[in-house]
């Protein structure tokens, strides 16, 4: 700025201060703008940029920017074409030089994310590896290369990197038998391993019991351990008592333990009661908890029943005082709610986050007990609990008003969309993240909720009074001998809500002020249009929405209307980011029998109206034809996506033809587009002819050739 010499400007601040200011800036585009101001800002920005995700084309690797020498967190897994075998396609005499060039461009890397199609990529990169490399995340959605020796994906890694502290294989498809031998052969290196993420969602079988025992004994200093396994007693190598004993005795320093049955990946909304029991008895669970006193986060997503878990969970609260996060899948009897005594999970007073899946006997009383006992809950998720109703959930929300901001309700028979929204009405002005299922009931009673409690009086209320006053309230009809109490929330009286109290047809004028993130699940064939009228009319700060459409199109009748209802989302003024996941919607691409719709028509139905939203970023998963493992964008879908004129980033998790991609060149400010087939098995280039390497390069060149104003 030209001003008189006496005026001081930001540029005159000493560098030490400026660099602290810059270090606090995380937003990439802001950083890019900063670096354009002047030479010293450029230097400082580069000096303080610690994290970088590269998005160029792999064939241009020799042109990699060399100014980002202070980057410590580097992500090269998203280079184009996505899923490319870096340095290896084809492997030439130049490949080691290119690998070296990458290392020289980023000399200080400590954390690396890498797509490893072939083990040679890793071998080349680690040949002269980064001395400070501590964290590694590998990504592979393609099939494991044919004829690969067991363990060769990892052999180079542990023999060369002796001080790795974190390895994340959650997106890396491999065989469970690949890893344990490598770990046990390199115990000097594995002694420094603190975090191991083996929650590989592409697995169908998971790690066996003996493999888990071997892994944990090779890595005695583990603090975070996540693993996909199998709790079904009918399978060889199922996780049972011995496995849990082994984990506790091998890795006593664990702070985070996450064990998930692989069926929770393929069937996340699973059956409420799978009938079978897991082989985990009470004593084992108690021994597990006793053996892990430092535990802060526990996830046990068992897809078989764990019965009578209340007593074990009481142990949890006494043995693991630091516990903050718990997720339990198919644990029954987590809190028995007898009288007003707190028991089971409700004794974990320090809990910040609780997720309960498929707990068939959890009822409203249980919810209230949890609300009383886990009084500091910030996040609560419930799925597949058939006994809970709006009443219980609402009371719980009232109890947790001071802290609860992140909630999820899924697959609960008594909680349709409107009921869920009514239940959270008491914390409507506080919720920041919300998930519910878009199940619309025919005659929705949009009246106000039931039990009104004076929350200030609640603190003094003892347990039995609370239970009594709740218990007497049947269907929301107030009994005449009980005075109706007004809801008083904290220091602010919520006028509009109090007014609507007396209204028999209470309609919410309230807005969901703090709601930033909304996640919805909807069955294929249902419409989104009822969303605002179900109770979500006013969300002034909603920025991000995630919609999952699931079901089988085959056999579904043609929808009566032409639009799924995306245009209804225009009523949320700040909405800029969307994830539209139709990936679990199954149908026919070309071979629909007469009378049924091809997927191209379904895509037209889903995407109609998307152009009327001012989206900035969109992730889209096209519906799939399972028979041919095809998830591709059809003509009307490409055309409708092209109408999103404000889009800057577009990611399609599937394939499509080059000429359909070319439609997107009409979107003026589109900067970042990629086809990411991050599902297993990702199509191999030779079989999915839709996006060949040449097509990808031509498209990106055309995209980058355009003039962008900002």
């Amino acid at each position: 700025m030209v001003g008189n010499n006496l005026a001081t400007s930001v540029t005159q601040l000493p560098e030490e201060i400026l660099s602290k200011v810059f270090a606090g800036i995380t937003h990439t585009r802001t950083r890019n703008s900063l670096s354009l101001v002047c030479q010293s800002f450029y230097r400082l920005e580069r000096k303080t940029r610690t994290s970088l995700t590269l998005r160029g084309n792999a064939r241009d690797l020799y042109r990699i920017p060399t100014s980002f020498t202070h980057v410590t967190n580097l992500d090269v897994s998203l280079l184009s074409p996505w899923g490319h075998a870096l340095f290896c396609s084809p492997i030439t005499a130049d490949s080691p030089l290119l690998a070296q060039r990458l290392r020289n461009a980023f000399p200080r890397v400590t954390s690396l994310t890498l797509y490893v199609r072939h083990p040679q990529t890793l071998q080349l990169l680690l040949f002269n590896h980064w001395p400070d490399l501590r964290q590694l995340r590998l990504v592979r959605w393609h099939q494991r290369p044919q004829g690969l020796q067991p363990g060769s994906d990892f052999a180079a890694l542990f023999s060369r990197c002796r001080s790795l502290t974190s390895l994340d294989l959650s997106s890396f498809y491999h065989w469970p038998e690949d890893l344990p031998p490598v770990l046990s052969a390199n115990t000097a290196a594995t002694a420094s391993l603190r975090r191991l993420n083996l929650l590989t969602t592409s697995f169908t079988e998971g790690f066996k019991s003996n493999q888990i025992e071997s892994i944990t004994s090779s890595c005695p200093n583990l603090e975070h351990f996540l693993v996909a396994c199998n709790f079904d007693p009918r399978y060889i190598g199922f996780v049972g008592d011995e496995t849990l004993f082994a984990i506790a005795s091998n890795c006593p320093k664990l702070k985070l333990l996450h064990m998930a049955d692989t069926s929770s990946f393929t069937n996340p909304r699973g059956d409420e009661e799978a009938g079978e029991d897991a082989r985990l008895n009470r004593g084992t669970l108690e021994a597990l908890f006793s053996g892990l006193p430092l535990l802060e986060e526990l996830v046990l997503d068992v897809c078989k029943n764990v019965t009578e878990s209340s007593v074990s969970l009481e142990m949890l609260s006494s043995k693991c005082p630091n516990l903050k996060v718990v997720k339990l899948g198919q644990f029954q009897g987590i809190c028995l709610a007898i009288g007003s005594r707190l028991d089971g999970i409700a004794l974990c007073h320090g809990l910040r986050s609780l997720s309960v899946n498929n707990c068939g006997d959890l009822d409203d009383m249980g919810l209230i007990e949890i609300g009383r006992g886990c009084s500091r809950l910030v996040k609560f998720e419930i799925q597949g609990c058939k006994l809970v109703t709006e009443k219980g959930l609402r009371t719980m929300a009232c109890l947790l008003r001071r802290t609860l901001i992140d909630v999820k309700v899924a697959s609960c028979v008594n909680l349709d969309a409107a009921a869920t929204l009514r239940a959270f009405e008491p914390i409507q002005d506080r919720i920041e993240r919300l998930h519910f299922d878009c199940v619309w009931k025919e005659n929705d009673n949009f009246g106000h909720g039931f039990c009104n409690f004076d929350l200030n009086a609640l603190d003094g209320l003892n347990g039995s009074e609370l239970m009594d006053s709740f218990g007497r309230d049947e269907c929301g009809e107030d009994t005449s001998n009980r005075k109706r109490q007004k809801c008083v929330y904290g220091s602010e009286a919520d006028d509009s809500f109090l007014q609507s109290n007396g209204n028999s047809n209470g309609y919410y004028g309230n807005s969901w002020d703090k709601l930033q993130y909304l996640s919805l699940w909807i069955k294929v064939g249902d419409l989104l249009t009822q969303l605002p009228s179900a109770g979500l009319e006013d969300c002034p700060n909603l920025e991000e929405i995630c919609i999952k459409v699931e079901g089988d199109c085959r056999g579904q009748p043609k929808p009566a209307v032409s639009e799924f209802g995306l245009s209804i989302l225009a009523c949320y003024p700040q909405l800029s980011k969307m994830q539209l996941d139709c990936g679990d919607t199954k149908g026919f691409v070309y071979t629909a029998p007469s009378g049924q719709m091809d997927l191209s028509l379904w895509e037209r139905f889903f995407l109609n109206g998307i152009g009327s939203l001012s989206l900035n970023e969109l992730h889209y998963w096209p519906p799939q034809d399972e028979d041919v493992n095809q998830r591709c964008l059809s003509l009307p879908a490409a055309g409708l996506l092209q109408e999103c004129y404000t889009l800057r980033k577009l990611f399609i998790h599937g394939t499509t033809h080059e000429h359909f991609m070319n439609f997107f060149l009409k979107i003026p400010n589109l900067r970042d587009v990629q086809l990411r087939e991050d599902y297993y098995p990702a199509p191999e280039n030779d079989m999915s002819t839709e996006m060949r390497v040449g097509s990808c390069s031509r498209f990106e060149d055309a995209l980058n050739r355009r003039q962008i104003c900002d």
Partner: protein
Amino acid sequence: MGSTSILDALNVRVEGSGDKYLVFAHGFGTDQSAWQRVLPYFTRNYKVILYDLVCAGSVNPDYFDYRRYTALDAYVDDLLNILDSLHVTRCAYVGHSISAMIGMLASIRRPELFSKLILIGASPRFLNDGENYHGGFEQGEIEHVFSAMEANYEAWVNGFAPLAVGADVPAAVREFSRTLFNMRPDITLFVSRTVFNSDLRGILGLVKVPCCIMQTARDMSVPAAVATYMKEHLGGKSTIQWLDTEGHLPHLSAPSYLAHQLEIALSQ
């Protein structure tokens, strides 16, 4: 196609380890991946040649020369160029829909090159011609297809979404058109006119190579009468194989059944 060889331009692939050559040629609106589930049955006994037609979505759009690809002959040139580049002297040929016609034309030019032609969903002429010839489509029905394609082109050119798809046209043409709309909006109409305007009844007699006509039980694009017509008029030995499956795309809807039928036909 300038300096790029035809083998690269049309994504030609040769798979398998047999000693005989077998060509799989796809119809308009799809590409060679349509054969992916049929292919495994043949890689042991044949060297299978797969390629994409120039109008397929997987081919560089720049290669489509409007002046050249006005009639089927240019497509025949491409096929013969590919076989010559691969030094193939004799092969069996499996063609779907329009590629069946291309195969027939190729065999007229080079009869010694083809040992057998297998024609799936083939028709020498799609339009009905008076009382004597029932091709399956009326001019009016085809005009519906063309106007839907025109609407798509206009929308696309003006930055709007081309929304018409195969299912929007009259039932009679629907099955056939369903893949046509997958092509580029600018060439869809052009290519479709080539298809619907072709009348190869006159040259059927010139085809001397033995043919096997494969006809699905209910293909709305190709009436049974057409199959019979072709058998009667083809110049060489020809047979009809009635397929116990529906639709115009048996290689997609019933690949293992079709593969079995192909094996039988190829061995005869």
